[in-house]
């Protein structure tokens, strides 16, 4: 179904990343030399997880005659913001910097991209917000970048990826979470792999569609990691958003984990209440892709009942990725109340910094009670 009112908050939008030469002005002299002399500026920095010509990476009617999907800001306004009455949209930069092994080069590129995003996107379109791209394999450098960029309140989230060097609950990463909690930034874990490991526990699949499908299993591993390591006890105000890998897999995870926890509590004594309750309090998931049968809206309705909370889902188009056609971004079978929570209330609850945006129209005013 279509979005029924104005004021939506789109929590996953992908403007195309700049080509490397466009980033040169944002690099210091050393890195400019490196890029030019080593011809690094001729690389595409396309992530293997998002090949630009793949059907998943660009909806056919959202592709420009030339250039990358999501590469034209006017098109983005016309296609991603206006049709859905979007008031705010969070840009998640999918750039190959995070897959480099050279941590310093990765950090320099991430900083260049963040500065480019501020200048070329946020300055030019006031409805846009952004996530901070960081070198995830070096928490110290990541922390520096977070602290450098966070003074710009339009950056609302730290972006990490579902398949990286290590499971994200590990204590090595905790300085990032401490900073995020302190600075009012949300931790976003987005689909995608740096391919440090095979995408499955039994090795490397042959097909790209398998890599994509397997993302949800990476999210399962990440959620268990955050939970088991005690991240939510250590950082009680931390919000985590799981981006672009569905949500219908969540109920069985909560069921299984809560049952297992009863048997393994002495191993993780800091988990002092049922994991399902902890997950509902700390975790959000973006809407698209909706991995449920379009032909049977009751299946989705049952699944939402199984999730047991209407506070978790966040509206997303995942523009320009192709998960739905026309303007039917919302699945059938959602109540008016659920739609409003997904479109407005839940995003405001998940992203403290979004609450700083100018007041919005009465039609889609948030329910104060739900936005804590």
């Amino acid at each position: 179904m279509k979005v029924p009112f104005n004021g939506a908050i789109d929590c996953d939008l992908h403007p195309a990343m700049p080509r490397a030469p466009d980033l040169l002005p944002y690099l210091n002299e050393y890195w400019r030399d490196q890029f030019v002399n080593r011809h690094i500026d001729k690389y595409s920095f396309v992530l293997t997880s998002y090949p630009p010509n793949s059907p998943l990476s660009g909806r056919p009617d959202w592709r420009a005659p030339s250039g990358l999907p999501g590469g034209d800001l006017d098109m983005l306004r016309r296609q991603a913001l206006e049709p859905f009455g979007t008031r705010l949209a969070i840009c998640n930069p999918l750039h190959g910097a995070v897959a480099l092994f050279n941590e310093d080069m990765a950090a320099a590129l991430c900083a260049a991209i963040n500065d480019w995003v501020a200048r070329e996107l946020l300055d030019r379109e006031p409805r846009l917000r952004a996530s901070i791209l960081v070198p995830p394999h070096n928490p110290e450098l990541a922390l520096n970048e977070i602290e450098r960029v966070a003074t710009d309140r339009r950056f609302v989230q730290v972006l990490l990826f579902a398949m990286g060097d290590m499971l994200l609950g590990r204590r090595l990463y905790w300085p990032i979470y401490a900073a995020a909690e302190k600075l009012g930034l949300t931790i976003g874990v987005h689909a995608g792999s740096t391919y440090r490991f095979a995408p499955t526990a039994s090795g490397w699949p042959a097909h790209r569609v398998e890599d994509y499908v397997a993302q949800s299993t990476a999210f399962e591993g990440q959620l268990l990691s955050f939970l088991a390591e005690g991240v939510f006890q250590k950082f009680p105000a931390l919000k985590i958003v799981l981006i672009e890998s569905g949500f219908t897999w969540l109920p069985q995870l909560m069921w299984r984990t809560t049952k297992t926890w009863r048997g393994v509590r002495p191993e993780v004594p800091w988990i002092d209440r049922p994991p399902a309750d902890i997950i509902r309090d700390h975790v959000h998931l973006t809407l698209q892709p909706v991995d449920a049968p379009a032909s049977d809206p009751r299946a989705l309705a049952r699944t939402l009942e199984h999730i047991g909370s209407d506070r978790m889902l966040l509206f997303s188009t995942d523009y320009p990725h192709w998960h739905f056609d026309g303007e039917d971004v919302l699945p059938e079978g959602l109540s008016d109340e659920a739609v409003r929570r997904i479109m407005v209330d839940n995003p405001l609850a998940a992203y403290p910094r979004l609450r700083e945006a100018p007041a919005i129209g009465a039609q889609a005013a948030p329910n104060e009670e739900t936005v804590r």
Partner: protein
Amino acid sequence: MNVTVREAAAKTTPSRLRDKGAASRPAIVDCDIHPAYRAPTELFPFLSARWREHMATFGEHLRHGLSGQLPYPRMMAAGMRVDAFPEEGPPGSDLALMQRQHLDPNGVERGMLMPLSKAGMEERNLEFAAALASAVNEWQLEAWISKEPRLRGGIVVPQEDAAFAVSEIERRAPDPAFVQILLSPRTSDPLGHRRYWPIFAAAERANRPIGLHVQGYSGGHPSTPAGWPTYYMQEHYAMTSGMQTTLMSLVFEGVFERFPALKVVLIEGGFAWAPAFCWRMDKHWERMRKETPQVKRPPSEYVRRNVWFTTQPIEEPETPRHLGDIIDWIGWDRLLFSTDYPHWDFDDPRYAFKFTVDDDKRRMIFRDNAKALYGLG
């Protein structure tokens, strides 16, 4: 001693809660029972001198960092029911105790043996793996099935050596004591890859299902795509993630197109994930169809046609009847009851289902589905 405790408990239990005894309960088929050796030397009669010496001198050579122990220590008694230890040897090594504690009181009409340890599925030395697999198959017959007619075996094959696996399947297939083929879902390459296809062809010819029981670290890949977990709590969950991607590989490589009569049983890998995972596969298969023309129908159709699931450890929703929705979506004819005896997370047939299941459906899950799938008389 455990029996004494049990009997004492029965005397003090209020009558309405007291076990009414096997005679008053319907017979079941238990699709996951773990037999164990008293000591690894129990395999020696089935190994040649060359491999006996190898086992004693070098032992198993696996893909993880601790030898002869679990890298994720279990929560109690090495992952066993504490009441399942016999006078000597590990749980599952004493047939008389298994009969007294499980087969008799739980009304087990048929039990599927699932030998995991030292069966060759994880062994890096493929010649040793072959010797172990043959030995374990012989041992199942001699130590278990010949002594207890309710038990049935699985033809254990080392999945990384397809040629040997095929010969072992062909050698054992005439024996009706072996009702399925067992290999590890934690393969070196995803299970749908062509190097494993001879095994599927042999399974189809032998008319035996492939049983995939969750287990260790056969292929050496981390149990999550973002590396190794820290705690057993995570590792326990990761087994089900691995089961999902193993199923994904079989579907997207076109295994069920090429081998339409192949039957696959996912053992101890959960089942509540299956509907959502099928929805996800269907959705993205449709979008990416051109990449995998070998997959001619929506993935969920192959799963509905070719795949079965065992129940233990059964998922427990906060609202128990929600599990009924899941089974409606999977199909009540696709679930096979299992206990995982003698492991710590054993599901008791009396209490596994925490919502009302009508008698017809109960009969299917507890008995008839398995009898039909495995051709049990």
